[in-house]
């Protein structure tokens, strides 16, 4: 199936939100504190809700958002690899979340002024939620990074482990660059905002940003880590086992 540039753009964002939302949902009942259990699930629900409106927008020929979310295989998913990395401990989840939230926030900020009506409306609605996500994960990064020796060391390790998955968020191929230009979306500004914000917060968290610029990518072209298959097996199981169950 050949996708238009708009469809590809929406799928990358929707799949990233859905997969990360699913990852966060795995915390349900396992959060370190009741309040943080609820907080992570709130973020999860926000992200899944956002992916839903993007899927609805690109659904065609009688497809629904459920068909797109539940009936595609791993190679058709375009989420950033960062979003499918396992939760690990609370600090791993927080760092993953912070690095994504910062990207997500500045992308949406750009989209609120873009030339596509749907994406502009979508961004204006979503950015309010994501602003809170960013505050939440940023505050926790600072608390844990600038906390006890143990929490600091754990968080530094989390950052070192996941850092290689960040460059992918800013890698754009030629059609993507053209689409960004058509939207009036400044890719360099998004990246610079991300660098500035993550630098500021991580510095306050007394964490050292890894020096390596090497990045692992492939998510946007369907080349995923071994983890995505397991996520999809769990997430899509009910829908695929009971294809006629329409009301659930």
């Amino acid at each position: 199936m050949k996708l238009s540039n708009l469809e590809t753009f929406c799928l990358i964002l929707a799949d990233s939100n859905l997969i990360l939302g699913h990852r966060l949902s795995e915390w349900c009942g396992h959060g370190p504190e009741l309040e943080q259990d609820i907080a992570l699930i709130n973020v999860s629900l926000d992200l899944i809700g956002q992916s839903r409106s993007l899927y609805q927008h690109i659904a065609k020929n009688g497809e629904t958002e459920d068909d797109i979310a539940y009936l595609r295989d791993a190679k058709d998913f375009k989420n950033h690899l960062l979003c499918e990395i396992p939760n690990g401990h609370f600090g791993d989840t927080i760092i993953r979340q912070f690095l994504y939230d910062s990207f997500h926030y500045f992308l949406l900020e750009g989209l609120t002024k873009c030339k596509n009506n749907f994406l502009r409306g979508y961004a204006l609605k979503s950015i309010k939620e994501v602003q809170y996500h960013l505050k939440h994960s940023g505050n926790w990064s600072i608390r844990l990074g600038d906390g006890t020796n143990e929490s600091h060391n754990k968080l530094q390790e989390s950052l070192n482990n996941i850092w290689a998955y960040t460059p992918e968020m800013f890698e754009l191929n030629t059609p993507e660059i053209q689409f960004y230009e058509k939207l009036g979306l400044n890719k360099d500004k998004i990246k610079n905002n991300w660098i500035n914000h993550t630098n500021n917060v991580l510095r306050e968290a007394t964490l050292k940003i890894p020096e390596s610029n090497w990045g692992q990518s492939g998510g946007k072209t369907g080349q995923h880590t071994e983890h995505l298959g397991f996520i999809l097996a769990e997430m899509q199981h009910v829908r695929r086992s009971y294809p006629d169950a329409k009301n659930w």
Partner: protein
Amino acid sequence: MSTNNEWPLWEVFLRTKKGLNHKHVGSIHAADEEMAIENARDVYTRRNEGISIWVVESSHIHASSPSEQESLFDAANDKVYRHPTFYNIPDEVGHI
């Protein structure tokens, strides 16, 4: 203050809309006031329940004693002049 590693308890008050008072809705645990506001937001205001949050550390609240129930609250209701029941309040006044 708790003596173990648990976070202190905070009481949460919500104002549901402009003009109304903050009302007690429940309690949460948090390490400090900033986290308390965020936790209260996540636990109590996700369905448009409020427009403003107050949090107060529970240890700062002093309560009356249940054993003083009678002496404090059992007022003599036969003294009608104690109750402002002889006035009609116009609807426009709203919440007072």
